[in-house]
C-alpha cells in the first residue's frame, strides 16, 4: 500500500458515511529494531498548518487553542485500528458525534447558524 498516494489527503467518513474531513496527518510509532507502525490519522486545521511549515503550524495551533479555549490545541486523532474500508474514501468504525472532530461545527451551529432564523 502506498501511504502518500492512497491514504494521505483522502476523504474520511464515519460509520454512517458522514464526511468528517480529509486525512490531514498520518502518525506512526517508532519502535526500536522494528518497522514504524501506523497508529493513527490526524484531522483538522492544526495538522494542516504543520504540513505547510513550522510557522503556519504554530499559528494554526495558537488560533485553534484560542478558539476552542483549550490551553494547547492538538490535531484530532483517530486510531488506525478503527479503519474499516480503504477505497476512494476511508471509512472508520466510529460515530463522529462522540468525537471532538465536529467541535467547531457544533460551536458554529449554536453560536452563529442557530441564531439566524430558518437555519
Amino acid at each position: 500500500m502506498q501511504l502518500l498516494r492512497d491514504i494521505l489527503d483522502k476523504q474520511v467518513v464515519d460509520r454512517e458515511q458522514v464526511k468528517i474531513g480529509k486525512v490531514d496527518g498520518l502518525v506512526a510509532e517508532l519502535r526500536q529494531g522494528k518497522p514504524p507502525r501506523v497508529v493513527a490519522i490526524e484531522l483538522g486545521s492544526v495538522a494542516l498548518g504543520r504540513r505547510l511549515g513550522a510557522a503556519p503550524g504554530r499559528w494554526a495551533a495558537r488560533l485553534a487553542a484560542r478558539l476552542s479555549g483549550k490551553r494547547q490545541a492538538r490535531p484530532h486523532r483517530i486510531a488506525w485500528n478503527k479503519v474499516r474500508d480503504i477505497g476512494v474514501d476511508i471509512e472508520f468504525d466510529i460515530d463522529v458525534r462522540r468525537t471532538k472532530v465536529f467541535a467547531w461545527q457544533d460551536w458554529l451551529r449554536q453560536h452563529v447558524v442557530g441564531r439566524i432564523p430558518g437555519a
Partner: protein
Amino acid sequence: MATVNLDHLAGRRVWSENGGSIGYIEEIIAEQDGDDLVVTEFHVGIFAAFERLSASTIGTALLDVFALRRREGLYRIPWDKIDISEPARPRLLCSEQELSGFKAGSQRRKTSH
C-alpha cells in the same frame, strides 16, 4: 511512545552520511503485518511527487514528454536504513555502495492496486 508524522516526510530531501542529498521522499510503502500496518520501505527519487502522478499512465506519459521522469534516480530504501526520527531532516543510515544496491532496476514492478 515515540511517534512521527509521516505526512511531514512527504517531499523531504534525504541527506546521506557525507552531507550530499540523494533526492526527495516520493512515497512510503507499508504492508499489513498481522493487524498492524507497518512501514516497509521509502521511495526516494529525483522528482518528489512522481509516485502520486504515476498512478495514471497519462501522468507518466506527460512527465516522460518533459523528460522529468528519470526512473533510474529512484531508490527503494528499507525502513531501517533511514533515520526519520526528525522528519525535517531524514538521514541515510547506510553507506554509499549499499545505497546503489537499493537503486530501482529498470523493470520497476507495475504499481498494481
